[in-house]
């Protein structure tokens, strides 16, 4: 279609694309240029200027402060992602190919959990976690993220498995396969792409999550997002350290996005309820 466009149109289009590119890059520019400034160079008056020389002082200090929290986030995100994906896959499998009376209603009831504002369960949740002795711990936070991740992972897998023809399961049944062996030999092998999408989606969401993280942890178990607000909240911390901390917080999910961009977009579109 490009060939039909006049030069003027082309220029306008690129101008629009570039203006928005600048808008999207401004915060990144501020983040990166400030994080690479030395302590002596961080000043409000020069915040829009590039650093005169590149310094990693900010990163060093931010990392020293945030390293335990980065670890906490990994301890949290990896098991929570795995468990919610595995359970979601099984749920999606059953809800798409082993339907029973009321299974669609059940699916709707599961799905509802994805839309609630978490404020509406937050206070009882905190009390409950205290009662079962998991308050303030990473395993507790894992449990919470697995449970509230189930609706979306179930939905993603169900939609994926729905495209698998029923004839396939029926044939396997005739051959004497049961619900588990059909999953293992037919569904699991074909769902690797779907697992990748769900892993990326859950990894990003749990890594970035803040509300549960701030209400269910103590200092020893605080994930990175909470530690970043604490760091940024105390203005005694220099801006180069704060911005370095923000980059450290954003980096893992950004890397996932850069490496697995295609799957990320897939997950995002699937996560938004089928259009």
């Amino acid at each position: 279609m490009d060939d039909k466009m006049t030069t003027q149109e082309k220029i306008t289009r690129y101008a629009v694309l570039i203006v928005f590119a600048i808008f999207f890059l401004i915060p990144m520019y501020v983040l990166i240029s400030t994080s690479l400034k030395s302590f002596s160079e961080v000043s409000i008056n020069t915040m829009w200027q590039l650093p005169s020389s590149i310094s990693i002082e900010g990163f060093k200090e931010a990392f020293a402060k945030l390293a335990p929290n980065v670890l906490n986030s990994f301890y949290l995100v990896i098991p929570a992602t795995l468990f919610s994906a595995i359970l979601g896959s099984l749920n999606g499998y059953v809800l798409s190919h082993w339907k029973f009376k009321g299974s669609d209603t059940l699916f709707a009831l599961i799905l509802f959990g994805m839309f609630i504002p978490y404020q509406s369960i937050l206070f009882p949740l905190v009390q409950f976690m205290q009662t079962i002795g998991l308050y303030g711990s990473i395993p507790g936070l894992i449990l919470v993220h697995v449970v509230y991740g189930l609706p979306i992972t179930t939905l993603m897998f169900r939609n994926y498995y729905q495209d698998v023809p029923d004839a396939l399961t029926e044939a396997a049944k005739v051959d004497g396969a049961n619900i588990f062996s059909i999953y293992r030999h037919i569904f699991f092998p074909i769902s690797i792409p779907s697992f990748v999408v769900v892993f990326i989606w859950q990894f990003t969401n749990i890594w970035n999550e803040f509300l549960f993280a701030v209400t269910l942890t103590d200092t020893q178990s605080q994930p990175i997002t909470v530690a970043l607000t604490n760091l940024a909240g105390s203005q005694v911390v220099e801006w180069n350290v704060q911005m370095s901390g923000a980059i450290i917080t954003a980096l893992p999910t950004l890397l996932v996005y850069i490496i697995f961009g295609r799957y990320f977009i897939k997950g995002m579109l699937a996560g938004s309820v089928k259009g």
Partner: protein
Amino acid sequence: MLFRKSMLLSILLMVALLFVSSFSAMAQNGEVEIFSWWTGGGEEEGLNALIELFNENYPNVEVINATVAGGAGSNAKAVLKTRMVGGNPPDSFQVHGGAELVNTYVETGLMEPITGLLEEWGVKDKFNQQILEMSSYEGEYYSVPVNVHRSNIMFYNKAVLEENNVEPPTDLASFKEALAKLDEAGVVPLSLGDTNKWPATQIFESLLVSTLGPDGYNGLWNGNTAADDPAVREALVHFNDIMQYVNEDHSALTWQDATQIMHEGEAGFNIMGDWAEGYMKTLGWTPGEEFGWMPVPESEGTFIVITDTFGLPKGAPNPENAKKWLKTIASVEGQDTFNPIKGSIPARLDADKSKYDPYLTSAMEDFAEDTLSPSIAHGSAAPEGFITALNDTINEFITTGDVDEAFENFQKNHEEYVQ
């Protein structure tokens, strides 16, 4: 195959996690869990020095330093409350003396009295008696105060005042004149950073003392002063006048930002608790050289106090070790170890003054002589519900300037949460 692998991996991870988390909770023979929000600046070093001192005296007891960072203690308070409610208290915890302790934990029956211990250790009469009173309920004491800060204090940049021929004010009228003069000269008269709301409430509480006097102010919390006392309204009027002279971007700033504005020579005055003095020292200032201080005008003779205390919760896992901790912080040695580092003054009156800087020495003198009043903004005067309601009232009042509405809200909040 991949399924098995990932399953195995996740189980291994889970086990490893549980192991790590239970490892720290594994009960050793002698330990004591101390809960606080001392995680930054001088306070963290002060706490570490205290722990060191404790270990010198009790080498067999391991201190579990449980801290919760964030929100100037508000995250920690939420965690503590959840643990206390769930019957899982630490051995001892940091709490502001006054309502924050008494109203929340003592009246609800979650604390052990420690009057007997204070007598046994012979320290009861070594403390400022007014401060011990703040943490008492029905004749028993419930916590050991370790440090004291003052909230009704005002700092000023000496050079800025000199350049503009402004004298440190003597009363509210001359204070407002000074502010107006600085305003005309184009500097920020009073720097404020109230993005967290309480710094503005703190100015208001000082003005309440100015108009009500210490007894009237203290009466608001024990029922001797009515919330519709005209002096409350008067304080709101003064507050409104003074707010005309603060920096416009105050709501985007923290108290540290506000102190920095003064440090950079762009503001004349700054009203902030005396932890700001410690911050100015880290910025390179010497007390009395570049900056001066005075009580908020017309609140002289009253010391609005914020005190960190430690108590003994019922059901503490290691009560004997907790008592050892309390004994350590109640000792003159403990107080003189912690306070010079934290930048606060001891709650005991027999501390070694030579360890403190000129500002802190002057604060120690005032502390010994003045009437003590509890701070609202920091939880000592009234329940937390009142504090946040008042924060909201003041926050709205700064924008609307509607004195009568603010006065009405003050009475409403007072009736709902204090009486």
